[in-house]
């Protein structure tokens, strides 16, 4: 589990590894799992930090 006070802990929904999330993370932000390299989306911050697999890039995504 992370010991850095600037991070918080969550669980990777893909491989069940512990994932360190920045303390200032926002809902909708994308983070990577260091163990399985899955792209994860911060689904909610409260009451518990929850991660989900990030959606695949869609055809109309961009700038």
């Amino acid at each position, binding site marked *: 589990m992370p010991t850095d006070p600037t991070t918080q802990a969550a669980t990777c929904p893909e491989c069940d590894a512990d994932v360190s999330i920045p303390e200032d993370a*926002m*809902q*909708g*932000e*994308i983070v990577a799992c260091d163990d399985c390299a899955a792209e994860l*989306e911060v689904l909610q911050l409260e009451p518990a930090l929850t991660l989900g697999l*990030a*959606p695949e*890039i*869609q*055809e*109309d*995504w*961009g*700038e």
Partner: protein
Amino acid sequence: MSTRLAFVTSRLRVEEKLLLAELERRGADYARLDDGEMSLLVAAGAHPADRPNPPTTPPADVIWNRSLAFGRTLYTQRILEAQGALCVNPSSVVETCGDKVLTSIALERAGVPSLRTTVAFTPESALQVAEEFGYPVVLKPVVGSWGRLVARLDSRTAAEAVLEDRAVLGSWQQQVFYVQEYIEKPGRDARVFVIGDEVTCGIWRASEHWITNTARGGSVERCDVGGEVGEISFAAARAVGGGILAVDLVETPNGLAVIEVNHSGEFRNSIEPTGVDLPGAMVDYVLGACERGAL
């Protein structure tokens, strides 16, 4: 109406985090909306009792949409404008910027230099265009970004293969064949930010790859936006309707040409080389719109 400003997002990029931090720093009265959680009433039904009283109002006076999904952005802005909101960028601007054909039409109509482009609707007619242009030519999807599915067709054989793939595998938009002349650019192109009436700053993006796009890597340095670069960028921003825009240009043997105009431009790599506080400039524009009640 509960708030002056709503900031609409989907997946958060670095850009949205920077803009949210700036809104917080200013103490702005805003709400953040996730378009994945939104549902928007567009028709109330035929029975008079179904009609909302008072009529449906938008979630805020001003909607600043930074969703990275073109379709969601377009419909959100359309619906909320119909409910009376002031939208940044307006739906008409999003529609034009998000569709390369509409962008080309707008630029051409305004006399802004762009690249020679033809649209065809079958692989056979698109192949005929490629033959007329001479190889290589570039095939781009009319909707999409980050250089995805942009193909350089170096020969008739390559053109036949790619066009058949698009015809068989693609959505209907992929079967609108946007065929563009290929430019041997000097290893770089420009991105210029136009915010309201100001040409704010710009960068040169360099890459050895024939596609130059910071989303695909490459080095960045400041671009002087005085003179022709700024003038053409401003004209391009005006041509699509204005707002907060990122104009991409390329140097051709015949002078500068606009490649595209982005309605939700990424700027993470532009702050350091330009020394310009882009999040601050964008928030200034939006908060100004909130004050004025107009763009």
